[in-house]
Every structure is written in structure tokens, then in C-alpha cells.
């Protein structure tokens, strides 16, 4: 029996999200997590384009990608700047 057979759906969701670091995102990891999720969306979008299928899902994935990109830019703009080495 595989691990996924033993788990309830709820436990599986918890594990998947925990492993991806997405249950409670650490404050200094938002940009990284947004990039991770973007990668997942891009993979899916490529699949949909390769198979020329799922027009609605394709549009939706492209829209989500745009949202993530916009959020990434804003989050990066507010990211605390690392200390200037010349001032250390």
C-alpha cells in the first residue's frame, strides 16, 4: 500500500502544502514561494499548449501566471534591502 493510499484526502492536502512550504509562508520567503508556484503554472501551461487542449484552462493558467508575476514584482519591490557591504 502506498503512502497516498493510507492517507485521507485531508492529510494528503496538508502534506503536499507543507512539503511545498505553503501552509504558512515564512515572512522572508514570499518571493521564493511565488516563484515556485509560477513554475508549477508554467509547466501546466506548457502541457496545455503542447497538446493544444483545454482552452479555458489555458486562459485561466495564463491569467494566474500574470497575477503571480504582478505579485512577485510588488513583493520584490517591498523586500528589505540587504546591508550594503561598503557600510559594514
Amino acid at each position, binding site marked *: 500500500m502506498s503512502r497516498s493510499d493510507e492517507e*485521507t*484526502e*485531508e*492529510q494528503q*492536502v*496538508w502534506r*503536499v*502544502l507543507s512539503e*511545498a512550504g*505553503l*501552509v*504558512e*509562508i515564512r*515572512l*522572508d520567503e*514570499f518571493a521564493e*514561494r*511565488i516563484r*515556485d*508556484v509560477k513554475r*508549477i*503554472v508554467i*509547466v*501546466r501551461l506548457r*502541457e496545455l499548449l503542447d497538446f493544444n487542449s483545454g482552452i479555458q*484552462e489555458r486562459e*485561466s*493558467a495564463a*491569467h*494566474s501566471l500574470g*497575477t*503571480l508575476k*504582478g*505579485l512577485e514584482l*510588488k*513583493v520584490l519591490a*517591498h523586500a528589505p534591502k540587504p546591508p550594503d557591504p561598503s557600510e559594514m
Partner: protein
Amino acid sequence: MKSTAKQLRTEANWPPEEGQIISFKSSTGSETTILKEVRWGLVWRDFILEDGRVIPEHRISGCPQPQVWRKINEVTDHEREECEERLLSMAGAGMDPRRRDQSFWAELNQYLAYTYLRFKQAEYKVRDAER
């Protein structure tokens, strides 16, 4: 403390009602406060406190296990699009998601979790179909 507030005592009453006193884990330890509202996000329930902080259900004391999650296909396109608009609007207004337990932090957490599950699950389904 409000005299009308009711003390939450058992899991049988889950989720607690507005006005009940709840305990939760915060960054500084355990806190007790009054619940203003319980609201479903895209994936899990958020507990809105009287002071405006937003606490995910799993951090509330007495949360039954396993936690209840929303199925991805329960979220409508309209709901997702509204969430995306809100997030972009909050980001555009200069809100910082690194302010823990605030609405932008809470909503961005849920959106990323939802988007990950949505497209990751689709990937699994394609692989299963190919086997």
C-alpha cells in the same frame, strides 16, 4: 473582555461562533481573544479576530484534526478572479505581505496554496491518464 463573549469549550461546537473567546498560537506564544468572524478562503478557513488579525484555522486551539479543506473544484472562476483582483489591489496599494496575520498575508498564503494545488493536481491527473 466582553461580558457577552462565550467561552469555547468543546470541539463539538466547531467552528466557534462570532463573539466566542478563542485561543490561538501567535508569533509570541499563545493568545486568547474574541472571534469576530469565520470565513472560508480558497483552501482553508480563516478566523478574523476583533483587532482585525486573520488567523488560519490550524492555529486555533481545539481545531479538529484532520483539518477540513475546500476542494479545488469548489472554488468558482468568479471567486478566484475576485481574489486575484483583491491581491493585486492590495499589492498596488503598497501593502506588505510580510506583515504576519494581516489580510494581505492571509489572502496571499491561501492564493498560493490554492494555485499550487490546482495546477499540481492537474499535473498528477495527466500523468495518471498517461499510465
